[in-house]
C-alpha cells in the first residue's frame, strides 16, 4: 500500500483553522498515521506562531502620542489594562507582576482562590464583580482583591480581577465575564510575585498581560471603561 499524502493546501487550511469541524476531524485522523504530513502541519503552525510573536511588541506598548492625535483622541488613555502599576491594598504596600523570571502557572496551578467556571450568585466574589469599582482595594477570604479594569466585549462585559496573597507571594489574575447566567470566570493565571522595590512599586510588565491578552483579543474586548462608564454599567447591573 502506498501512503498517500494530503495536498499541502488542505493541510495549510487545517493549520490556519479554515476547515469545518468535520473536515478538521478528518485531517486529524489522517495525520495520526502520516507522520510526514504531521511534521508539515507542525512546521506551518510553528511558522504562524513565530510570525505572530515576532511582531507582537506593539500590543504591550503604550501608543505613541502622535498616533493618538492622528486618531483624533490626543488625550486618550490607551491600553490602560495593558500597562499599569498594580497596587496591593494592605498597609499601603504596592506590588506588581514581574517582567521576567516569574513562573506563570496556568490553571490548574497552586492554591488559588479563583477557579474557572460560574461564580455563585451572592458569593463575595460575585458581589465584588457586581459592584466594586476598578482600582478600589478590597479583600476576599483574607487576601487582597482588586478589580483592575472593566472591558466591553461583544455581548456584555468582562472584568479583570487580581488577587494577591502576599504571605504566599502569589498573584492571581482572572478574567470574569458577565453572561445570561451571571458571572463566569473564563481564565485564571497565577504567578509568583517578585520582590518589592524599596518604595513598593514595580511597574507592571509583560507576563500578566501576555497571559490575558490572547483571551481579551479572542473576546474582541475594547478599551477599558472609563470610571464614569463603569459606574453606569454597575448601576445598570452590567446589562447592555
Amino acid at each position, binding site marked *: 500500500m502506498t501512503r498517500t499524502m494530503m495536498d499541502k493546501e488542505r493541510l495549510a487550511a487545517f493549520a490556519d483553522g479554515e476547515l469545518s469541524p468535520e473536515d478538521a476531524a478528518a485531517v486529524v485522523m489522517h495525520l495520526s498515521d502520516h507522520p510526514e504530513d504531521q511534521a508539515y502541519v507542525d512546521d506551518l503552525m510553528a511558522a504562524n506562531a513565530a510570525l505572530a510573536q515576532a*511582531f507582537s511588541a506593539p500590543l504591550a506598548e503604550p501608543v505613541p502620542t502622535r498616533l493618538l492625535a*492622528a*486618531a483624533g483622541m490626543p488625550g*486618550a488613555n490607551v491600553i490602560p489594562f495593558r500597562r499599569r502599576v498594580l497596587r496591593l491594598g494592605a498597609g499601603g504596600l504596592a506590588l506588581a507582576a514581574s517582567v521576567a523570571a516569574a513562573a506563570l502557572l496556568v490553571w490548574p496551578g497552586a492554591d488559588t482562590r479563583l477557579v474557572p467556571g460560574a461564580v455563585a450568585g451572592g458569593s463575595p466574589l460575585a458581589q465584588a464583580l457586581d459592584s466594586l469599582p476598578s482600582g478600589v482595594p478590597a479583600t476576599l477570604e483574607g487576601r487582597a482583591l482588586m478589580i483592575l479594569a472593566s472591558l466591553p466585549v461583544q455581548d456584555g462585559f468582562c472584568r479583570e480581577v487580581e488577587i494577591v496573597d502576599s504571605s504566599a507571594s502569589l498573584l492571581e489574575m482572572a478574567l470574569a465575564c458577565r453572561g445570561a447566567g451571571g458571572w463566569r470566570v473564563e481564565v485564571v493565571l497565577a504567578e509568583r510575585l517578585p520582590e518589592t522595590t524599596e518604595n513598593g512599586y514595580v511597574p507592571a510588565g509583560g507576563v500578566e498581560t501576555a497571559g490575558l491578552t490572547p483571551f481579551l483579543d479572542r473576546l474582541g474586548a475594547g478599551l477599558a471603561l472609563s470610571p464614569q462608564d463603569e459606574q453606569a454599567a454597575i448601576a445598570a447591573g452590567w446589562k447592555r
Partner: protein
Amino acid sequence: MTDTFRRDLVALIPKLRRFAWSLTGNRQEADDLVQAACEKALRNEQQYRPGTRLDSWMFRIVQTAWIDDRRRARTRGVGIDPEDAHLSDHGKAASLPEARLMLERARTAMAALPETQRAVMALVAIEGLSYREAAETLDIPVGTVMSRLARAREALLPALGETKGGRQ
C-alpha cells in the same frame, strides 16, 4: 457616532502597529504608516459602514497606504526593495539566544517575501483573519489568498529553519 468611531480606532492602534510593522519591517516606517492611515480613516469616516469589521477596514487602509508609499519610493528611485536586496543581518542573528534568533529569523524571512505574499501572510498568520476576510480586505479572490500563502510558505518554512523535513 464619531466618538465611538474614534474610541474604536484608538483601541485598534496596537494591532495596526503590529500589522504595519510586519509589512514594512521597520518600526519607524510602520508608525508613519499607521499615522497616515488613522488620518485617512478620520477623513473618510462616512465611508465606513457601521456593523462591519473596523479592523479589516483599517487593515485595508494601512495596506493601500503602504503600497502607495512603496510605489512612490520606487518611482523616485529611493529605498531598497527587499525583493531585490540580498538581505543580510550582518551577523546579528548569530549572537542571539535561540528564542530571539527564531523571532529575528521570522522578521527577516517576512521582509524577504514579495509584497503581495507578505500582506496575505500578515493578515492570516499574524492578524488571524480567515481566508475570506483576508480576501475581502485585499480585494482579491479567496483562491489568490491561498496560492499566495502557499508560495509564501515555500520560502518561509525553510528560512525559519527547524523544519522537520519531508514536505518541502
